[in-house]
């Protein structure tokens, strides 16, 4: 008895004992769950395994801009359409929310009282109302637009109706790929140019008009090539035929509602992180740079923003992650993202809840990990480098 007690008061023994106990309980729990689940599945006649992925889906998806989806396609195709739609709205939303968020964050610090108050009211109202409500509200506004027959026209090219925005669809002909390659090359060379000019400025102090040159490279080179190759691009215009538009391409109201709501909601949060980031740069920095004689716009661009970014990036990352996860709310307005398409309709059709949910969750985890990995790399690159 005594030896037992002293065993137990030994820290090493105790730590091993508790950890083994926890693993044991955990394993027992998993075993029991697997047992009951197997029993339950059998009793309810639910199939298991991954074979359902290659079965035809049997339903249509209204919005699938990248993949031509037919109802005879498989559940695996539904999954890919879902991923594309999730990524599409998240990507567009992140970019728009960043721009809007930075703008509002800066406006909130404006010396103009009225302007900063308006920004404050915007932030408080969008932050404090559930996102789902905002998505549904935008959708209900969008579907009250005029019907297809009375669609609003813009320059005979764009038609705005309650079924979405119809616009001309670009048709890339032979040779357009060269223009695209030229653009990519111009992009790469402007990056190299920027590095070179920065190095030269560090060494000799001479400046080089990088922005102008890069703009020239990016616009003129592809444009010249475009005309040399004989304009290998044409447009397919939408035209009203019968009850619907034929040709062109369409952005559905579900997408627009998701995009608007996610952007406006997340921008409010981003603006707050931007504001606190800018406020975190001490007043002395601003005073020092104006005593050096820097212009007001330069102070912001060269002194304040680079330092504020270090504070802004980590919370910005979590806002991007939130936006991506929030894009799963598309199910409320029928936007065929991962959760609605694969985790919703496919799950209901096949009844294989466990498999579908495991795939959906694993996909979101992967997307989250990739976003945080990228943002971590960016974060490292802008952190203060101690020499």
């Amino acid at each position: 008895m005594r030896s037992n007690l002293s065993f137990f008061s030994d820290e090493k023994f105790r730590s091993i004992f508790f950890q083994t106990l926890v693993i044991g309980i955990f394993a027992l729990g998993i075993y029991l769950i697997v047992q009951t689940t197997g029993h339950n599945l059998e009793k309810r006649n639910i199939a298991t395994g991954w074979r359902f992925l290659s079965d035809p889906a049997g339903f249509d998806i209204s919005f699938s801009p990248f993949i031509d989806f037919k109802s005879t396609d498989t559940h695996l195709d539904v999954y890919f359409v879902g991923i594309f739609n999730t990524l599409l709205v998240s990507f567009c939303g992140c970019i728009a929310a960043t721009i809007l968020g930075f703008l509002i964050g800066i406006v909130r610090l404006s010396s103009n009282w009225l302007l900063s108050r308006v920004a404050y009211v915007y932030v408080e109202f969008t932050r404090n109302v559930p996102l789902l409500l905002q998505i549904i509200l935008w959708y209900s506004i969008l579907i009250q637009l005029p019907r297809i027959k009375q669609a609003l026209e813009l320059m005979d090219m764009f038609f705005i109706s309650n079924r979405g925005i119809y616009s001309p669809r670009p048709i890339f002909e032979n040779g357009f790929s060269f223009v695209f390659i030229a653009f990519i090359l111009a992009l790469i060379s402007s990056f190299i140019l920027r590095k070179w000019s920065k190095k030269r400025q560090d060494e000799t102090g001479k400046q080089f008009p990088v922005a102008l040159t890069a703009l020239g490279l990016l616009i003129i080179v592809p444009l010249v090539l475009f005309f040399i190759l004989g304009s290998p691009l044409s447009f397919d215009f939408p035209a009203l035929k019968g009850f619907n538009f034929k040709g062109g391409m369409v952005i559905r109201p579900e997408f627009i509602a998701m995009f608007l709501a996610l952007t406006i909601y997340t921008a409010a949060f981003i603006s707050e992180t931007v504001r606190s980031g800018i406020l975190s740069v001490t007043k002395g920095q601003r005073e020092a740079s104006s005593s050096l004689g820097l212009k007001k716009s330069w102070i912001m661009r060269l002194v304040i923003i680079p330092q504020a970014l270090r504070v802004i990036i980590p919370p910005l990352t979590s806002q991007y992650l939130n936006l991506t996860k929030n894009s799963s709310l598309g199910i409320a307005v029928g936007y065929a993202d991962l959760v609605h398409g694969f985790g919703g309709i496919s799950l209901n059709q096949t009844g294989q809840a466990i498999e579908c949910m495991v795939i959906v969750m694993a996909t979101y985890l992967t997307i989250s990990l990739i976003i945080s990995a990228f943002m971590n790399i960016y974060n490292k690159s802008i952190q203060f480098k101690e020499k």
Partner: protein
Amino acid sequence: MNEIIESRKPPVATTGILGWLRANLFSNWVNSIISLFVLYILIQFIPWILNWTIFAADFKYNFNGEEIIDRTMCSRVLDPENGGACWAIIYVRFYQFMYGFYPREEVWRVNLSYIMLAVAVVPLLFDDFPFRKHFLKFTYAFPIIAFFLLNGGLGLQEVSTNKWGGLLVTLVLGCTGIALAFPLGIILALGRRSNLPVISMMCTLFIEFIRGVPLITLLFFGMVMLPLFLPEGINMDGLARVLVAVTLFQSAYMAEVIRGGLQAIPQGQYEAARSIGLSYWQMNMKIVLPQAIRISIPSIVNTSIGLFKDTTLVIIVGLLDLLGIGRGALADTTWLGLAYEVYFFVALVFFIFTFAMSRYSLYLEKKLKTGINIGAD
């Protein structure tokens, strides 16, 4: 010889309203243009919104003085040019918005719980509340009282949770989620910082998993997968299953917030506690956690605001919270097309709650900054 010259008054344009206007609205010509532009838009917009929501709106009667019983009697349907919002839809369905389909003869139980909730929460929020200690005893007992009061049992008639709805479901989900996630979050946070590798790894995996997936997938998990995991004979109703999902979700976020608080506690506190012979649990319960939780309360309130807004997601798995009741009202053909009124009302209710919570969090932050220093100097 020496004569004191009377000090001159400051220039008119630097003090008073004029000075304020000049400094804040018209400091230079760019600012002046912006101010005038914003002012112009506000002058256009504010009267319009006030007119729509209040002056031209119907509350119970339309402009003819008739009591509104369906959409065709709304002023804005009869006279689209001049009619404002038709709040009659809220008025007629107010009971549903507050209680869902709770039986009318039992509704005093919900009202009593609302009042008791206020009595339980307010002393918790302000630490200079008179007789706080005695009120807190009630706060701890409140969840049990509320459970029996709302659900039935102990002589009260049973009201099944699928009759609950509206604000009742929103508050039940929000409050229970926060209350249950708090202790779970503490355990997870301590576990993640534990020296035992197995426990720390399991807690980390759990937290990162939950934070990596959207809440909606967890709700689906609760709805479609949880019943498969449970042995026969154990049936959980929809509300309980959603509560499991919401609690798991919130506990992971709560854990991260509390972990932040734990990291802010200086190492010396741990060492001092150990050196006077406290055990691991004594050290955490008596020394570390009280300090860590105190500094993380503002962030706890902020994640709670997030959860409160996220409770609307339960409409996707078929529960009728405030938003769900609103959508139900809109699906009714007698009230078709009054979407803006319903969404405005639901948004307003959420805004009142979340705005109050965010003000409270700001108040706490200010108090923490000016209050006594936390931890060792």
